[in-house]
């Protein structure tokens, strides 16, 4: 019977309380939100925190809103909230694309945006989506708040910039005029991690790509990001040839590993195919065609 090892439980009702509890209990304490990453690991006894700090009552962090020229997503926004959010969809359809293929509807009721990106599984879709839209993460501790760009937020597999005594507060996404975004994922079955996935965000001025972001999941791209692909696109024409060249660069720049989802050559191929599809749709959306 897979059940967790003994653990203590605390519940935080405010952010400050959560931080205070983290400081009180030290690194053997973990925040728990949706719990759909942490609890399965605890059941397998791969994770053995001594204390769980339940932050599900932090409803203040469960928002998705536009503020100035940013879309702001509170860390406690559930996957379902992001999927259904009209304001998120209006500016960044990439999030709906991604959420439609993250886990399943029941898990999406509980899993949170913050929980998923903090768990930082290399196949985690929102991490790739946030990479594509050049998001920044807001982290708070007792000494204040700091802002970390997503490329620095994701340090490596299962490792983020959130340190001891810190809590992720929100993700901010810059809203730029002329933007379109999209996400493409291939998986063996609904609910599975990606075999490969790509997110793209392009900002067009006429037929020129002013700014571009390409995020990749599950293919070993550093920080979930395809910088090489972005370099190809930036300042260039928004054409099929350019997108193809960028996709090739995305594939060349990732480092997929063979596993039961697929061999490395297939994953690299997917990186290329899906980056191209995401770019096409992102551009079409930027042009108001989709």
């Amino acid at each position, binding site marked *: 019977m*897979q059940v967790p090892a003994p*653990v203590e*439980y605390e519940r935080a009702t405010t952010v400050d309380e959560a931080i205070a509890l983290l400081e009180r209990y030290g690194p053997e304490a973990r925040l728990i939100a949706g719990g*759909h990453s942490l609890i*399965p690991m605890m059941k397998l006894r791969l994770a053995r925190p001594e204390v769980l700090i339940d932050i599900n009552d932090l409803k203040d962090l469960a928002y998705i809103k536009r503020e100035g020229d940013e879309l702001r997503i509170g860390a406690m926004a559930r996957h379902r909230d992001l999927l259904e959010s009209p304001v998120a969809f209006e500016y960044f359809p990439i999030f709906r694309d991604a959420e439609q293929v993250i886990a399943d509807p*029941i898990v999406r009721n*509980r899993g949170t945006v913050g929980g998923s990106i903090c768990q930082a599984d290399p196949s985690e879709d929102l991490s790739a989506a946030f990479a594509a839209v050049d998001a920044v993460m807001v982290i708070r501790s007792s000494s204040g708040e700091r802002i970390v760009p997503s490329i620095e937020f994701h340090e490596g597999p299962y490792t983020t910039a959130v340190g001891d005594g810190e809590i992720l507060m929100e993700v901010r996404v810059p809203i730029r005029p002329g933007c379109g975004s999209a996400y493409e994922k291939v998986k063996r079955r609904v*609910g599975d991690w990606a075999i490969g996935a790509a997110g793209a965000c392009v900002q067009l001025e006429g037929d020129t790509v002013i700014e571009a972001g390409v995020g990749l999941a599950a293919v070993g791209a550093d920080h979930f990001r395809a910088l090489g692909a972005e370099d190809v696109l930036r300042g260039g024409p928004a054409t099929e040839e350019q997108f193809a060249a960028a996709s090739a660069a995305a594939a060349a720049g990732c480092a997929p590993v063979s596993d039961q989802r697929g061999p490395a050559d297939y994953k690299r191929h997917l990186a290329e195919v899906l980056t191209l599809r995401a770019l096409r749709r992102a551009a079409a959306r930027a042009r108001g065609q989709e």
Partner: protein
Amino acid sequence: MQVTMTVNGEKVTRDVEPRLLLVHFVRDVLGLTGTHWGCDTSNCGTCVLWMDGEPVKSCTVLTPMAGGREIRTVEDLERDGELDPIQQGFINEHGLQCGFCTPAMMITCRDLLDHNPDPSNDEIREAISGQICRCTGYENIVRATRWAADHPATEEVTA
């Protein structure tokens, strides 16, 4: 630790280990065995029940996390001896065979209809896509939900 929650309309308080999974609390401590478990990795969905009005996989919730919240299980579907339309739909359309995934499927389908009273077949399939059935091949679960959508309850049922 002591945990208090409302289960099927009744307040319950029990002393439990914090690590006790909600599915085990409901089944083994409260004796409500209509909610089942079938996997270790939050995939199968036989443990679905309502927590604060949302279907959740109760194998992935620790009992204290449900403290102060409202839990509803399959045992709460029937009211005053009358089956919920979803239950009748499952009977009429042969939406169950071994019955093991059934309570969870009915809860998810009931929840879908509460938010979307006339779903398409694709929407029904999407709603249950996080739950596995080995017996029915899903077709009759879709038809059962369709039946319930076409035969809603005639009286207001207060939760």
